[in-house]
């Protein structure tokens, strides 16, 4: 244990005496005397309900969070009275722009509202009646195996950082909790789908591990955010879209449709985060760009890996003997992904003229 409370409460006779007095009915009620802002909040849309945006008022709102948080290192919810003596919780992310995106509160509400339950909503019986070949199923199982690892990493990123972020940024932290749940669920459904298909899970492989290690080992939250939310979530989005477009199975169609919506909230946050950060601290753009180029280098290793390239080609072609003919379609998929990544990076303010992904795809095309 690294922290011991400042009093030995159990052995403090004053504590016991005070408790006895309360049990006798001598309540201590001075905590009710508050000099605090009173506001009225109602849902701006009755069907949406009372959202974070509806409570973004006065001292309770996120608009008043300063760029540098110096006034609260405790677990006190923003706007609550903070008496002297609150312990310092040890947050080391106390700058709003380091984590904030203006879209985060709405994405949190959206995540809750669009929650789905793969355990019941995926038509699992359809997996029993797979109309495609064992070879296609083997390819799908490999992609789902990769997606399981990717989703786990996508959940590890917010869980690695959330406890270090100042409690004042609570809407952002709540959004990170939904990211963790969404990622857990995507890992869960990917794993189940691979196993349920009958061919079992596929192989792990070093190029994927290298990519995920580069994402997970990002040295700051902005670097982690750019690599996880813009690059990794973007990759997961297009792999899920591709599965949905190639597999005729209703289970895969359902997983793709709902999985895509979950990872797309992370891409929205990632872009919004970079935009907010670089508006406040534009000098950070070069280091973030360099970091993302480095993670893209690992991404190229993954996209070029024989296992991923072959699995994508097999899923695209639908059967092994036609897989070599699918190479142009795989390159077209990579081109689409590279274009989308370029657009996201540009919008985020971290576009790159030396993007390894762009160079790799251009080389393939030539």
């Amino acid at each position: 244990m690294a922290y011991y409370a400042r009093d030995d409460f159990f052995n403090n006779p004053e504590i016991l005496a005070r408790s006895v007095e309360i049990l006798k009915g001598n309540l201590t009620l001075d905590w009710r005397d508050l000099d605090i802002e009173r506001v009225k909040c109602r849902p701006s849309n009755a069907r949406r309900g009372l959202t974070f945006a509806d409570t973004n008022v006065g001292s309770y709102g996120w608009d008043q969070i300063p760029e540098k948080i110096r006034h609260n290192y405790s677990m006190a919810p923003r706007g609550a009275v903070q008496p002297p003596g609150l312990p310092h919780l040890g947050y080391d992310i106390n700058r709003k722009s380091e984590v904030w995106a203006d879209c985060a509160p709405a994405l949190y509400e959206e995540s809750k509202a669009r929650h789905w339950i793969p355990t019941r909503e995926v038509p699992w019986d359809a997996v029993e009646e797979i109309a495609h070949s064992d070879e296609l199923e083997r390819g799908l199982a490999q992609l789902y195996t990769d997606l399981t690892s990717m989703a786990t990493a996508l959940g590890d990123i917010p869980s690695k950082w959330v406890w270090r972020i100042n409690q004042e940024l609570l809407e952002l932290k709540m959004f990170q909790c939904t990211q963790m749940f969404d990622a857990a669920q995507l890992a869960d459904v990917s794993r189940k789908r691979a196993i349920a298909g009958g061919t079992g899970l596929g192989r792990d492989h070093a190029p994927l591990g290298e990519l995920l290690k580069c994402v997970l080992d990002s040295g700051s939250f902005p670097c982690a955010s750019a690599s996880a939310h813009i690059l990794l979530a973007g990759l997961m989005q297009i792999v899920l879209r591709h599965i949905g477009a190639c597999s005729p199975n209703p289970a895969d169609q359902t997983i793709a449709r709902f999985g895509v919506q979950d990872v797309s909230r992370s891409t929205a946050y990632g872009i919004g985060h970079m935009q907010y950060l670089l508006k406040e601290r534009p000098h950070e753009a070069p280091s973030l760009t360099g970091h993302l180029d480095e993670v893209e280098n690992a991404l190229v290793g993954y996209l070029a890996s024989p296992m991923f390239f072959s699995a994508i080609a097999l899923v695209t072609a639908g059967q092994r003997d036609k897989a070599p003919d699918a190479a142009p379609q795989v390159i077209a998929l990579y081109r689409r992904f590279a274009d989308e990544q370029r657009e996201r990076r540009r919008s985020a303010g971290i576009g790159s003229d030396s993007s390894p992904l762009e160079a790799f795809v251009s080389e393939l095309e030539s």
Partner: protein
Amino acid sequence: MAIKFPSVDFFQELARRMAADPAGFEKLGFCDTVMGVKVEGDSSHLYALTFDVFECSDVRELASPGDAELDFTLEAPLELWREMFESIKKTGHPEPAYSLNSLSHVGDRMRVVYDEPEGHDAFYRFMATIQAFVDQSAELEIEWA
């Protein structure tokens, strides 16, 4: 009574049906986006559909894309839209090749046009709702333009 496609009436009828099925669309969650639907043919038509919480609250035909702040626009020839709606008509859901995801994937049969990537990602954030919205056409008798 047949409803002409493309027309404002067609999309308004889908919006009316969406409002009449709160349980179905509340289950899919909030949908907040303004999307364009472009039907290309001898005379092209562009529509703006505004989705707000659980409803499609506004349908308008636009003279040009600049007349509304569209997050993204789905563009396809009339013939493809017809194939998609006829596929939906068979079972209430499209065959896999005619889902919005499949049509808009790499082959570019249906183009997703957008100014900013946030708009493009909005299509994927709300695709389940938009697919359910167009799937309601299964119950319509459509008169093709």
